Each structure stands twice: as structure tokens, then as C-alpha cells.
């Protein structure tokens, strides 16, 4: 049975002790778990970049700070608070394109994706959905329908969404999914909005990079 009528200091000290032990235990488990969690996160990101930039040999992480790209985070700013883009290189160290992430509210909830962009040709070269809670069977086709995803392999920016069979053959056209127009439109909007924000920096690379 729990004790009754204990003095106040007893109440506080018990909780404090329990809190201390609890904290200690959690820190121990955290130290064990953190490397694995980080490794997984990095692996997922690497796989996504690999997918949208067609398997680059390596990639650099660049930080967007005040309208310029930095190779290292500036002093005193936590890395995770910064916006990042990734620059992929092929085996001969030639840049193949940038991988950019973005997210906006879709039909059900926020859609997050990563896409590849080649400033040389001004084309979007790949797209992968990272997070989506769209309707299974309809909206989730933005990640499950291989044809829709393939639409983003080599399409001129800015993208224009068109309904199936209504396109005129423009290089920037993307066929939207029937029955999931809002989800499709959101994917296109995310890419267009991000490019509007970032292409002044990306197109003029390496001039925009601060070393």
C-alpha cells in the first residue's frame, strides 16, 4: 500500500528522486538509440536524393541563409533550423542537379516531397513524395501511381497541370490524376513555388555559394 500522511518534504523528495532516476534511464537509452535513428534518417534522405537525381555519385548539402547558399552553417545557428538543398555530382564531379524539399497542405493534410532540378536545362528531373496522408486509393496515387511520378522525369519548369488527354504538348505539362486533382495540383504547386523562391540562387550557382 502507498504511505499515507507523509510529511511534505517526503512528497517532494520522492518525486524528485523518481524524476532523477527516470531522467537518467532515459538518457542512457537515448545515447544508445540516437546513432541508429540518425543513421536511418540519413539513409532515407540519401535514398530519396538518389531517386530524384538519378543516382548521383555523391551529394553536397548546401544551406540557404539570407538569399545565398552556404557550404557550412553560419556561426551560432543550429543545423536543423536551416533550410537545405542538396547538390548531386556524377562520377566526374560534374554537378547533375539540385534536390529540393518542400511541403504544402494538400487535400487531407500536408504533403511533403523532394524533387530534382537541373538549372542547366531548367527541367525538373524527378519527384518523390516523402510524407502524405491523402486518401488511400485516390490521393495516395501521387506516390503510388508510377506513371504520375514518371511525369516529373524531365519536364520544363514552371510546371503546368493539365487534365488527362487535354494537354497541348507543351514541354511544361504534367498530366494530373483523374479523381485526385487537388492532390496532383498541390504536388505541382509545391515544386513551382519552391522553384520560384530558389531558382535565382540555383540558376546562378556557383556564383551564389559562400565558402
Amino acid at each position, binding site marked *: 500500500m502507498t504511505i499515507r500522511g507523509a510529511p511534505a518534504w517526503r512528497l517532494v523528495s520522492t518525486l524528485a528522486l523518481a524524476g532523477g532516476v527516470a*531522467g537518467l534511464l532515459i*538518457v542512457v537509452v537515448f545515447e544508445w538509440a540516437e546513432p541508429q535513428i540518425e543513421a536511418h534518417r540519413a539513409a532515407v534522405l540519401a535514398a530519396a536524393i538518389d531517386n530524384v537525381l538519378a543516382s548521383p555519385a555523391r551529394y553536397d548539402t548546401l544551406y540557404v541563409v539570407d538569399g545565398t547558399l552556404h557550404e557550412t552553417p553560419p556561426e551560432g545557428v543550429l543545423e536543423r533550423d536551416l533550410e537545405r538543398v542538396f547538390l548531386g555530382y556524377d562520377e566526374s564531379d560534374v554537378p547533375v542537379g539540385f534536390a529540393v524539399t518542400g511541403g504544402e497542405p494538400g487535400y487531407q493534410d500536408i504533403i511533403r516531397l523532394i524533387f530534382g532540378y537541373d538549372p542547366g536545362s531548367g527541367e525538373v528531373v524527378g519527384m518523390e513524395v516523402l510524407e502524405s496522408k491523402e486518401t488511400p486509393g485516390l490521393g495516395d496515387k501521387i506516390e503510388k501511381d508510377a506513371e504520375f511520378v514518371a511525369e516529373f522525369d524531365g519536364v520544363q519548369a514552371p510546371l503546368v497541370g493539365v487534365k488527362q488527354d487535354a494537354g497541348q504538348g507543351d514541354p511544361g505539362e504534367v498530366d494530373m490524376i483523374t479523381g485526385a486533382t487537388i492532390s496532383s495540383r498541390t504536388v505541382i504547386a509545391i515544386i513551382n513555388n519552391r522553384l520560384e523562391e530558389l531558382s535565382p540562387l540555383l540558376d546562378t550557382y556557383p556564383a551564389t555559394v559562400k565558402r
Partner: protein
Amino acid sequence: MSGDLFWILISAMVVNNFTLALFLGLCPFMGVSARVATALRMGGANIFVMVITSLTVWVLNTFVLTYAPYLRLISFIVVIASLVQIVEMTIKKLSPTLFRELGIFLPLITTNCAILGLAIFQTNRGYGFLEGLSFAIGAGLGLALALVLMASIRQQTELSDLPGLARGMGLVLIVAASLSMAFMGFAGLLSS
């Protein structure tokens, strides 16, 4: 920016309703929702606690927890429990009538997944001060809405001719299923 805030509020209230889409706050939903008046009071108490929690969580996240993210859960639950205790004592002192009407519900709110869920979602989505506030108001309104809807339906069904064993929780859940389906219709609201 204000468009974002409005989307957050509407999304939390109807599109991703805390009870009917995210399954938070089910204990009060099942137990309290037989009278509309009770449901309204519970909903009101919830909104109040949610807003205060949202502000406190924002303070915690911004100033304290950046250094020890793994202590997040413990700090949240301790804060929520203390907050409810403080709110209860404050209401008791300021307005004994209000306390008498609300009093029973406040401890229920502590172990209510909706409040902790609010804290966790707010943290995971990285909401700032205003966004967190929007989220809390929307979530609270949504919870209250679900409670009141369920209560009014249950009040009606008490007078109808149901088979004996269909009354009780089985019926409540089937009604909840219909409500949830109805709320799915809100998806796409505010989308371009």
C-alpha cells in the same frame, strides 16, 4: 501568413477533427456525451485547457527542450497535470458556481489523450506561437463540436425504439462511425 493560420484552425477543427479523424479525446466522447448541456461544458473546459497548454508547450519547446528532446514526454505530462491542477484551483477560487459545473471534468482532461496529443502534434509540426494558438483553438472547437453532435444524437435516440442491446456503447460507436464519415466530407475545404 494569416491564410496559413486560418487553414490550421479549420484543418484542426473539421478536416482532421481530433476526435472523429485522429481518435483523440475518446474517453470524454464516449462517457460524457449523453447530454448536450454537459457536452458543451466539457467542450468549453477543453478549449480553455488546450489554449493554455499550447502556450506553455510553446514556451517549453522554444526555451527549454531544445537541449533535451528526449525529456519531452515527461515534461509535457508533468506540465499538463500541474496545469489542470492550477486551473482547477483558480476556477474554484474565482467562480465557485463555474467550478461546481465544470469541476468534475477537469481531472478527466488530464488523462485525456487530446491534450497530450495537442502538445505532441504541435511539437512535431514545429508550430510557432500564433500557429500553436490557432491549432489549439481549432482543435478545441472541433472536440466541442464532436461532443455536442454526439450528445444531441444520443439525446434523440433515448426516445426512439431501439432493440435493448443496441443501446449503449455499440450504438455510440456506430453513430461515431457515421459522424466520422460525414466529417470526411470536409477534406478539400480551403484547397485551391
